[in-house]
């Protein structure tokens, strides 16, 4: 008999989640933990977690972890990977962390082609601090700091940072996916698997951007959040493979 819904080895047991109902973080956590096991990475993995809702990721991932100051994850990951190339090193970052305060670290770690993997949770807001505007907030989207909706005249346009770094020669694999239903979750797992494999194969930098629901700050039900990703967010941030320089494809 095959156990279909096995608890992943690298996901801690008997812990209550602090993520809100319908939050995308929990779903992506589960995927990462499953891949740690399926790809036999958990024993040599180091996860760098962010300042953001996922600052508490260590409560769930049962692998070695180090916390980062807001936005500095890929610099820390660089330090770990350069001195211990045998370790499997990935960061887990939000859109504020990765594409606002950590933009320089994101761009330069990608441009150096560091052999790290970046899991980028794009939920179009600052979740942890209560729903302020993020660089990825959509035009017209209401947040606590854009009460009238994001106005490009004052607030700029949504930042497509993954598209930017996908052009770098050292960025071997970049894909944007969406946690918006079973098919999207399957695709997310496949993308993260590909990205992890890039590092396993010693090819260079890989990143997966995940459009991820934040029902709490979007003030929507989990169901409506999935719908909003499909109907609104994915129109601005179009899912797909942004670069694949592995040779051979997947």
């Amino acid at each position, binding site marked *: 008999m095959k156990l279909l819904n096995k608890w992943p080895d690298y996901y801690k047991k008997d812990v209550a989640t602090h993520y809100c109902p319908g939050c995308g973080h929990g779903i992506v956590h589960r995927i990462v933990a499953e891949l740690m096991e399926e790809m036999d990475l958990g024993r040599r993995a180091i996860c760098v977690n962010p300042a953001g809702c996922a600052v508490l990721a260590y409560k769930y991932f049962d692998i070695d*972890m180090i*916390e980062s100051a807001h936005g500095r994850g890929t610099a820390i990951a660089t*330090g770990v990977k350069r001195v*211990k190339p045998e370790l499997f090193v990935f960061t887990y970052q939000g859109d504020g962390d990765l594409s606002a305060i950590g933009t*320089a670290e994101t761009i330069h770690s990608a441009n150096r082609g560091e052999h790290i993997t970046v899991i980028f949770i794009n939920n179009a807001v600052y979740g942890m601090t209560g729903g302020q505007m993020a660089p990825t907030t959509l035009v017209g989207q209401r947040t606590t700091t854009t009460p009238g909706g994001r106005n490009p005249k004052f607030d700029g346009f949504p930042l497509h940072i993954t598209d930017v770094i996908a052009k770098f020669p050292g960025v071997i694999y970049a894909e944007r996916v969406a946690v918006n239903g079973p098919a999207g979750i399957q695709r997310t797992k496949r993308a993260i698997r590909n990205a992890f494999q890039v590092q396993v194969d010693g090819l260079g930098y890989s990143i997966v951007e995940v459009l991820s629901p934040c029902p709490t700050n979007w003030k929507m039900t989990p169901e409506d959040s999935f719908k909003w990703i499909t109907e609104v967010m994915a129109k601005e941030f179009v899912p797909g493979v942004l670069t694949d320089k592995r040779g051979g494809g997947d």
Partner: protein
Amino acid sequence: MSGNHTFGEAAIRAGCRSYFGYPITPQNELGEYMSEHLPANGGVFVQSESETAAINMVIGAAATGTRVMTSSSSPGISLKQEGISFLAGFQLPAVIVNVMRGGPGLGNIAPAQGDYFQATRGGGHGDYRTPVFAPGSVQEVADLTRVAFDVADRYRTPVMVLGDGMLGQMKEPVVFPEPISDFPEKEWALKGRGDGPSRYMASLILDPMEMERHNWELVRKYQVIAKNETRYEEYMLDDAKIVAVAYGTTARIAKAAIKRVRKEGVPAGLLRPITLWPFPKEPLQNLARRIEDFVVFEMSTGQMLEDVLLSLEGKARVAFHGRPGGVVPTPVEFARVLYREYQRQMRVNNETA
């Protein structure tokens, strides 16, 4: 060898296997030295995109138990402060070199000692201390860099070595200690969980009671450091009636000034703090039992002065002479101050007699 190159060579001989930094004058020769010699010794050199990135790369390397160094000069050290606070919170060992220059702001690239407060008062946010070593010669750069790595590892703490543009650029003969590479296993280091339990390096402690416990735990560590690692030099103190207090480059100038005034019959001596934190408080207090006059010399507007005043607790007169902004004072200038203060002491004593 120049002070900057000596920092690098001493670090490599101390088993440093990684360096992350961003160019800034007057310490560029240190990073350049590392870019050539670290990879040749099986180490890692990365020129980062900023000092902020550099100190975070340091955090990553330190977390794996690797001996790691970064260096900068004043403006760049300001950018590293967030990371130094995290190193203190994580209890990670690392060596940070600051080759100070004039400030505030961009200031200039001349030697200065204006970062004393920043170095000894934590510098970044939160309740922590950083051991600070202040070499006074190129030979001492070699010796104290080794000590800095050992202290960092022993107490799991970031350690700063505080020099200035003069010390960095100056060339002197130097004898290096033998290289070491065998270190005791760092059980706390992250290396992937393997078959053991997973570990987590955190500075986030949401429960205030637990955070307070962590704070006091750090304090207990700092008390042990203060007890075991405080260093200072006594110079011509045996018969001294007036004592200069100065560190680093300023202490060298003070020594030359003391030789000068002694020829004029002024019995001057020097107490040179080698660790700025922990500050050699007790030696100063002991001196105050027989010395009435102290003169603090700094290339700043008066920062270490506050530690001297705190140490002496009003038990002696304290004069101050400072040259901030990158001005390097001369021995003649210091000699004049010592002479003047000693004359005043004699006058006061005659009046009360």
